[in-house]
């Protein structure tokens, strides 16, 4: 297993990756501005999907609360954008709600870099606290999942309820510039696309490193048998907290980039339905494979944007049906389906094939 042989298949795979990466980075050359912006949004979602795959696919913990982490990242960036758009004045919605002064916790968000750091740190911190109080007491499986769903509900009600501080149901929008560049101009959009692509690549490589390290093996071991891992001497709680924090931070990064592309964030974008849709991205692409999760996010959102605009009602039927089909018939997602195809010129045994796929 350790020796890496340059089999033909491996070379094809590398060429495929390189071609995909090149096609992605050259996308501004052949996509319209509108399409490019859409693709950029999907890439931001792919970052969220990678994080979700780490915790669900590799560690076996299902979080339905990633909409919150995504939303917190998005709000952090949106607060900066809102302040920059408002200039010296108070953001418009605060005035409508009768606020006279900028709340203290808004002040530091005048700095882009503070906002960017907060967009990672705040979701990570929330995940750390929640993870500490759940995993430490071995609250896991379904119980954890339900708690994360409750987290979504209370966060959205809180954001809607605190109209003066968060913009309420409407959320934050009406942005003009980012770091002084007009946010809507094609040049800025292109730059943001490249930034998102680069961040996605970096995140992908980081996840790959984590998954391939011994820590990644321990994560899978915890998924297989948490107690067994405990009796070997690992403390599953610290590993679970770690992976929860990392994946929350990634969701935060995805949220920040999302706001930069889309120009709005509201509580409905972090509610129950979007949170669970994120899980579907991973499920459909293939949980436990990084490429699958990222591809699932892009593909499903592509289908959604092309399908739901013309047939919004049928889309919900389709989405619901997809959940059922993927869970019941394709537990390994699209990647699992590809894995079942018999590759020619392969001399490995069927068993080793299986092993290799799980290690991707």
């Amino acid at each position, binding site marked *: 297993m350790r020796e890496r042989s340059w089999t033909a298949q491996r070379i094809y795979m590398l060429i495929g990756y390189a071609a995909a990466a090149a096609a992605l980075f050259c996308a501004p050359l052949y996509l319209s501005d509108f399409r490019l912006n859409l693709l950029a949004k999907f890439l931001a979602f792919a970052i969220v999907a990678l994080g979700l795959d780490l915790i669900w696919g590799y560690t076996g913990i299902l979080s339905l609360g990633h909409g919150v982490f995504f939303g917190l990242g998005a709000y952090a960036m949106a607060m900066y954008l809102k302040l920059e758009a408002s200039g010296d004045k108070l953001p418009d919605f605060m005035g409508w709600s009768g606020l006279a002064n900028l709340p203290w916790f808004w002040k530091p968000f005048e700095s882009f870099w503070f906002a960017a750091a907060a967009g990672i740190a705040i979701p990570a911190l929330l995940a750390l606290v929640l993870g500490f109080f759940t995993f430490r007491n071995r609250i896991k499986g379904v119980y954890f999942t339900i708690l994360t769903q409750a987290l979504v509900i209370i966060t959205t009600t809180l954001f809607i309820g605190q109209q003066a501080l968060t913009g309420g149901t409407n959320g934050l929008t009406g942005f003009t510039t980012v770091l002084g560049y007009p946010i809507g101009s094609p040049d800025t959009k292109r730059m943001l696309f490249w930034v998102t692509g680069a961040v996605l690549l970096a995140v992908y490589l980081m996840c790959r490193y984590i998954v391939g390290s*011994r820590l990644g093996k321990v994560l899978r071991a915890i998924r297989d048998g948490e107690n067994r891992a405990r009796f070997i001497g690992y403390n599953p709680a610290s590993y679970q907290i770690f992976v929860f924090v990392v994946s929350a931070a990634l969701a935060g990064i995805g949220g920040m980039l999302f706001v930069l592309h889309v120009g709005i964030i509201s509580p409905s974008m972090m509610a129950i339905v979007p949170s669970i849709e994120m899980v579907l991205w991973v499920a459909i692409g293939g949980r436990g494979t990084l490429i699958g999760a990222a591809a699932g996010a892009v593909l499903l959102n592509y289908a959604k944007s092309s399908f739901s605009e013309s047939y919004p009602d049928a889309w919900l039927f389709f989405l619901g049906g997809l959940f059922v089909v993927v869970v019941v018939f394709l537990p390994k997602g699209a990647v699992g389906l590809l894995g079942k195809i018999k590759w020619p010129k392969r001399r490995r045994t069927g068993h080793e094939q299986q092993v290799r796929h799980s290690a991707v």
Partner: protein
Amino acid sequence: MSSKSVILQCKEVSVEFDGFKAVTGMNLELARGELRFLIGPNGAGKTTVLDVICGKVKPVSGKVLFQGKTELTRRKEHQIAELGVGRKFQAPSIFPSLTVMENLEISMRQQRGLLAALRARMTREDEQRLKDQLQMIGLERKGAWRAGGLSHGEKQWLEIGMLLLQEPQVLLLDEPVAGMTDKETHKTGELLRQIAAKRSVVVVEHDMEFVRNFASKVTVMHEGRLLREGTMEEVQRDARVAEVYLGKRRVELDVSRSTA
């Protein structure tokens, strides 16, 4: 016995499950390098004693001293494992989606912290150790297999191999030959001999034939209490033991055969 040669000491350990007394005032002393068998009829509390030692079950009273000083009942499971107490459960529990090699790799004695695991690199010595261990448990040709695809006996050996790589000072084995064929049982016996040469081992066992193959001390438990301690002959000659346990010897033997 001086405290130096005693590695593990259970003092007046009692366990209750919702009012049911599973173990009452159990005492057990294990010397360094000793191989000890823990026998007794079903429900005698043998497995519960192992559970207390490895931290899975907290006793209502009593102490478990490791190396004469460390109180195990106040530690968490993973800390106890780190201190050097290894535990094998009755059903084979390996990590089915990891390969055999990966199972061994994460079991190896090493730093168990997050950062250490993130940075861990396989050295040549590590690799050699894993290969040697693979050889010892007879799975050298199946290193790249998914552990879930192994046979029942192979899983048991893999688990023993994982425990050995942990390099525990005390090894707790719960019915290591249950459900094995005669051939597999024999091989496991050989493994056990090799293991016991280097460390202290407690084995819970039902199969009397298997126990008789080893000339070592036997502890008999009955209804949560210590009944008798001594060599196999001494124990067999004891009237009370015969009454509660060996009187049912035929039945026990039948059970061990039927599960084989």
